């Protein structure tokens, strides 16, 4: 078995890429591969920082389960600069911060027993039942439970502050798939925008195009939140045959936001109310008017990434009460647009 498992793990490493390579190496060490091969593998712990000695015990573990748990626990503990090393009989260069034993002789039950070596006899653990957890989420559940158990162990006394690992965790580790429900995010986005008002909604001779800059600030808690946006643009012309009316428009909206995430892809749907400051000028007559129009706005933004991310967005504004452009003696020759479409590209910065 020791000769065939490393081959299997190597195939896994090749198939899954670099992320699995560390796991494969860990398992190779765990199952005592031959000395030459072992010497060639990277040591664990690789850096001089803190690390957790992870011991699988019991008869219910499969190699694949162990691999998944190690991977998920590494993700959890990497935030605290702790490395996870499957237990071996080799003498490590430095003692582990804690030893975690995962005991499972029943496929539906795992006991987690963390211990600090300095506190002899201070064992405290917990048992989690896996029966109600989907198969593909069990490793994450075990890892999170182990993380919580380790935090409980380290509550008193406080473990020494670990220096940053010389070799930080691989950056291609997958992001946590379940964000804490209470996480509040602040996001600020800015980018160029093109607004257009089709002729059917103005009675103008051609579609009105208005280049602008869009600025939006959003605060979300998990999936819901709110946003405030403003669009800054230059004056644009509404052309009605021989008449050209210059319009400056400054819309500000307050919206409810719904956030949907799938990995690094995030979609944000904003819906709310918009108020726009209008200034209309007919230069030949030296006449200008200012007003505020009210309406509804909906916008969809797609972004990719975590902190500083590119985004693309589309929006629609509906203004139910457009203002007529009136000339004597014929009366109205058109009106401000009752609908604006917007398209934006830009960057978004997020904070937690």
């Amino acid at each position: 078995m020791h000769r065939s498992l490393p081959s299997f793990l190597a195939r896994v490493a090749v198939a899954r890429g670099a992320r699995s390579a560390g796991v494969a190496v860990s398992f190779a060490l765990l199952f005592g591969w031959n000395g030459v091969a072992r010497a060639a593998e990277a040591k664990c712990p690789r850096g001089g920082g803190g690390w957790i000695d992870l011991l699988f015990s019991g008869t219910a573990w499969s190699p694949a389960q162990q691999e998944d748990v190690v991977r998920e626990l590494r993700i959890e503990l990497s935030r605290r600069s702790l490395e996870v090393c499957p237990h071996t009989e080799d003498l490590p260069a430095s003692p582990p911060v804690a030893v975690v034993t995962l005991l499972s002789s029943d496929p539906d039950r795992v006991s987690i027993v963390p211990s600090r070596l300095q506190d002899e006899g201070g064992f405290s653990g917990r048992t989690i039942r896996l029966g109600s957890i989907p198969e593909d989420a069990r490793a994450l559940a075990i890892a999170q439970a182990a993380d919580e158990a380790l935090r409980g162990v380290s509550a008193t006394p406080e473990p020494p502050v670990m220096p940053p690992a010389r070799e930080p965790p691989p950056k291609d580790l997958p992001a946590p798939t379940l964000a804490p429900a209470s996480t509040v995010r602040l996001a600020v986005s800015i980018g160029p925008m093109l607004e257009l008002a089709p002729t059917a909604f103005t009675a103008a001779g051609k579609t009105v195009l208005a280049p602008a800059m869009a600025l939006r600030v959003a605060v979300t808690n998990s999936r819901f939140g709110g946003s405030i946006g403003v669009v800054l643009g230059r004056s644009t012309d509404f052309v009605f045959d021989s008449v050209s009316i210059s319009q400056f428009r400054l819309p500000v909206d307050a919206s409810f936001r719904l956030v949907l995430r799938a990995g690094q892809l995030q979609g944000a749907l904003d819906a709310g109310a918009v108020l726009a400051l209008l200034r209309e000028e007919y230069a030949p007559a030296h006449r200008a008017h200012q007003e505020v129009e009210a309406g509804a706005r909906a916008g969809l933004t797609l972004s990719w990434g975590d902190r500083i991310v590119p985004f693309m967005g589309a929006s629609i504004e509906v203004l139910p009460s457009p203002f007529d452009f009136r000339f004597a003696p014929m009366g109205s020759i058109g009106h401000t647009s009752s609908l604006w479409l917007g398209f934006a590209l830009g960057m978004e910065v997020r904070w937690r």
Partner: protein
Amino acid sequence: MAVTRTMAALAFALLTGCSDSSFSFGSHPDIIWWTDHESGDLSDWTGSVPPGGFILPGSSRVEVVKGLARSGQYALLVQDNSPDARDYPLAARNGPLPVDVYCSAWYYLPEPLRPKSYWWFVLFRSRHPPYDTGSFRDEVNVSFTTRPDGSVGTRVSSPDLGESVPPVLDLPVPIARWFQIEVFHRTGTDDTGEVDVWQDGELTFHVTGRNSETTFAEWMVGGVVDSLTTAASQLYIDDAAISKRRLGPVPPFARE
């Protein structure tokens, strides 16, 4: 509190979804002159923008009256008080008109008008030096006529274009209902001249060729009438305009 009021106002605006707000920018640049007679007098005809105009009552009546109007409360009433003689109650705008110009007005006949042979209710007149009252020639005119079925119709004639230009569309003139006559007039002392007439937006006459003795043209409405065969003698006129482009049957005129 202010935020609450603002949100309430916004919600109201969104829910009602209507507003009579508008932006007024003065007179349309394509309109050279216009009147809705809401001044209650003839000042729009005689003054307003240069070069002004004039009234020729003849022995009849040309005045702004209250009561029957297409827009507002006032309209111009032209009444022929000389049923047995030729008369010319007219309201005119001075020339020279632009070479290409549209002249439009709305007309109302309380009863069918039955002139003995003609009632020019639209008239283009040319003038020549020294441009005094006697130095003119009546050119293109649109006249009321009686159609074969007895209804009132229109006819176009001029010294150069002939006594009766064939119509593109022979339409009856409605009685007791406002109707629009709009004329495109390209003053032509040679073959470049053109006259088009629309009644309520439909082209009724189209003729090209020399239509004026000089390039100095002025526009008149009202009546140049030989004599009447019935007692009916009233013509109301409202919402008159001279413009650079065709107006068509626009809604009643509005001031701002």
